[in-house]
Each structure stands twice: as C-alpha cells, then as structure tokens.
C-alpha cells in the first residue's frame, strides 16, 4: 500500500494507519453505477477501499451524462460496469474491482451480496431496492441506502446496530413495496445532476465511517436533503411491527419465491418481433415524449405513462398488447394497469430490460 497517496487522511485525528488498513481490507458492493453510484465509486476508490464490486445491467446513454460523472460521450453504448471499473482502476491501480453486468434479482442477490462486507444501494427502481434491502437484512449486512427525486435526496444506513443494539431496514419505513409505476423515476420526474452527486458522496462518507469505525453513522436515521433550500431534515427510524423481519436466507426465499400466476408475461426482443408479425398485436411505448431514442410511432404507438390511466379506459381491440419502455420497469406498471382491466381476456406482454437492453435492435430498424 502506497501510504503517500493516503497521507492527508492518515494524519487526521482518529483516523491513522489503523483506519487506512481497515479500508484496504474492505469489500464493498455498489449496486447501480448511475447518478449515485458514480460519485460513491470515485470517492471509495480514491480513499483506498480494497475491493469494490459494481453491479449494473445498463449501458451508458447520452441522457446519463449530466449526472453520471464517470462517463464521457465516447462511452455511450458501452456497459456502465466496464467503463466505471476502468475509470476507478486508473484512479487507483491498487484497487480490486469485480464487475456484474446484470441486475441484482431475487435469484442472484444472496449469492452476490454474501461476498461483501457492506452494500451501497444506488439503484433506480423499487423492485431492486426491496430485493437488496431484504437480502442484506437476511444476511445481516450493513446497507447504505440512497435515493433521489427532483431536487431532493434521501440517505440512510440499514442493518447497523446503534448504541442500544437496535437496527432497522427499509421495510421499517415502507413495509410494502409501491406498485410498479406508482412512484415516478428519474426519467419521468427528472433530477438535477448535482443532487445524486451530493447524496452519493455523502453515502461514500457513511461507508468510510462504518468501515473505519469513526464518527456516528446514520444508523436508524434518515436524512432528507433538499438542494433548493440547502436544508437537511433528519428523521429517527424505529422498528415497525407491520412486517416479519427477515433473519436468515430462508426468510428471503420465502418472500421472494418465483411468481406462479403471472398477470403478464415478460418477453425478449425476439418474442416481441414474432408477436409484431401476428395480426391483432398492439405495441405501446409508454415512455414520456421527451425520451430517446425516438421510435417509429407507426410501429410503436406512444402512450406515455403519465397518460396511461386515461388511455386504459378506452377500448383496445387488439388481442396481444406488448408494452415497452426504457428499462422494462414502467412497462410492467402499464401491464398491471391493463391486467386490472382485462383480467386475462387479452395477452399482455412487457419487454424485459426495455429499449436500453435491446438498443441495437431498435436503432437498426
């Protein structure tokens, strides 16, 4: 270990070689190499964390660049995990980086998370957030949670005992996940780039505190940050009795078992293509009108999620309805809305992974 590199933090009172040594032995998993993940990765790598895992299934898009500061224009179309891993290794060659070019899902969460000491959740959807939260809770791993919306952000530390020996997790705040599409994401609601920059950097600070044992981590506290007023509002979290806390891997598997009755079917691009040639098929792009890439609206009818509820009240004649969006998350929300209306009398499909995953297919048409 080159201690010159870390000299300015080693000389800090209460830090020293001992804390630096702890960082160099730490294994941190960063889930989501987006607006929150990028600054966290930069500061963790710079601070001398020994091993960092990066999980993200997405490629870099041009609309990411205003907030995802590890990426440049030349990286558009490349896997985020690969670009991020290269950048942070350039920053600190001592660093060991594991890349997972996939989503953390109910099938792989326990296996991947169990390899790390601490997890950072900087994902952009509730499905992933609940899986990560539950797997960390079941495995008793500290979890640094960060989320943003518009000009505001939230930061908390879960599964870490406070001085009374009490710990909490995201289900103590919101025991039941919101329905798909219920809460707007960054693509629908917008976000100022600097907001995940601030929150992701504060998250890196919490991670360094937890690993080195300095200061007072945000255990059982949630900080709400508003950039427009530059105010923070801190809320103390206490355990909820509205859900059964996960204490072991079996508890996780019990909650996250595969669905037996599907309200809709998730398909890949080949299956969508096959459906497209069949009569009585309607393909709907539920992204908002400002989103890229733009698709041919004579093939992909555009009905943004913000108008979908009112659209769903109209009569649809087609038997097969395929819903698509950027990442395959909002399209599930739309599929649920149509299922509520048609109750199995139509075939409802959602393109898994969305346009981002099948980018080449959509761009080559």
């Amino acid at each position, binding site marked *: 270990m080159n201690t010159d590199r870390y000299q300015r933090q080693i000389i800090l009172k209460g830090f020293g070689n001992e804390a630096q040594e702890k960082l160099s032995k730490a294994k941190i998993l960063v889930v989501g190499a987006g607006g929150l993940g990028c600054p966290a990765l930069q500061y963790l790598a710079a601070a001398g964390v020994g091993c960092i895992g990066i999980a993200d299934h997405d490629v870099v898009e041009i609309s990411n660049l205003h907030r995802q500061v590890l990426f440049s224009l030349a990286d558009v179309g490349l896997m985020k995990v690969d670009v991020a891993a290269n950048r942070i290794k350039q920053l600190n060659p001592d660093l060991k980086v594991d890349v997972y070019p996939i989503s953390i899902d109910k099938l792989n969460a326990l296996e991947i998370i169990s390899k790390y000491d601490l997890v950072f959740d900087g994902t952009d959807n509730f499905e992933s957030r609940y899986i990560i939260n539950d797997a960390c809770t079941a495995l008793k791993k500290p979890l640094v949670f960060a*989320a943003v*919306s518009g000009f505001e952000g939230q930061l908390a530390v879960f599964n870490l005992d406070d001085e009374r020996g009490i710990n909490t997790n995201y289900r103590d705040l919101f025991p039941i996940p919101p329905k798909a599409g219920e809460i707007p994401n960054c693509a629908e609601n917008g976000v100022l780039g600097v907001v995940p920059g601030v929150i992701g950097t504060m998250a890196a600070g919490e991670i360094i505190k937890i690993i080195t044992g300095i200061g007072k981590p945000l255990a059982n506290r949630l900080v709400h940050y508003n950039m427009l007023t530059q105010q923070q509002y801190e809320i103390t979290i206490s355990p909820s009795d509205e859900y059964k806390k996960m204490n072991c891997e079996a508890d996780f598997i019990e909650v996250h078992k595969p669905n037996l009755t599907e309200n809709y079917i998730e398909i890949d691009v080949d299956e969508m293509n096959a459906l497209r040639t069949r009569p009585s098929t309607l393909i709907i792009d539920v992204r908002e009108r400002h989103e890229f890439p733009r698709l041919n609206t004579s093939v992909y009818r555009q009905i943004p999620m913000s108008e979908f509820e009112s659209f769903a009240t109209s009569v649809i004649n087609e038997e097969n309805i395929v819903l698509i969006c950027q990442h395959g998350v909002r399209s599930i929300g739309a599929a649920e809305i149509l299922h509520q209306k048609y109750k199995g009398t139509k075939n409802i499909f959602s393109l898994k992974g969305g346009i981002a995953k099948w980018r080449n297919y959509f761009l080559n048409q």
Partner: protein
Amino acid sequence: MKIEKMHIEIISFGKISELMDNQTIEIEGVGNTDELKQYLEKKYPALAEMKYKLALNKNIVQQNAQLKNHDCIAIMPPFSGG
C-alpha cells in the same frame, strides 16, 4: 371530551410538497396522527392515492400517536431515483 384547537406544523417532501406547502395548520377535533391522516387526505384527496410515512417531531410514526399543540408532522414519500 372536547379537543382543543391546535397548531400543527406540516413539512412535506418530494411529490407531496407539490400538493401542499410547508405550513402551520390550525385544527380542531383532530387529536392523534390517525385522525390527522384522515384530515389531510380529505383536504388533499391526491394524498390518499400516494404512499407516504409520517414523522412526529422527527420520529417515524409506527402506530397512532397523540398530538399536542405546536407538534411538527413531516410527510415523506419513498424515493426510488438513482
């Protein structure tokens, strides 16, 4: 027992702050957080459709809690963006 008029400070976040400004409300006949939820959801019907959690004087409300004059209620939605 007649419940006295009370002043309660309301602080809201995210999408909920688009429904209501931060403000101090004067309420009568509202004595606890469950009743306050009903009052707010009646006054702001869109709130009833949203997921949110209350904090009373900066502590998460896990079960119905008594309100007293000059208490502060924060209304927090879940955020998912990254």
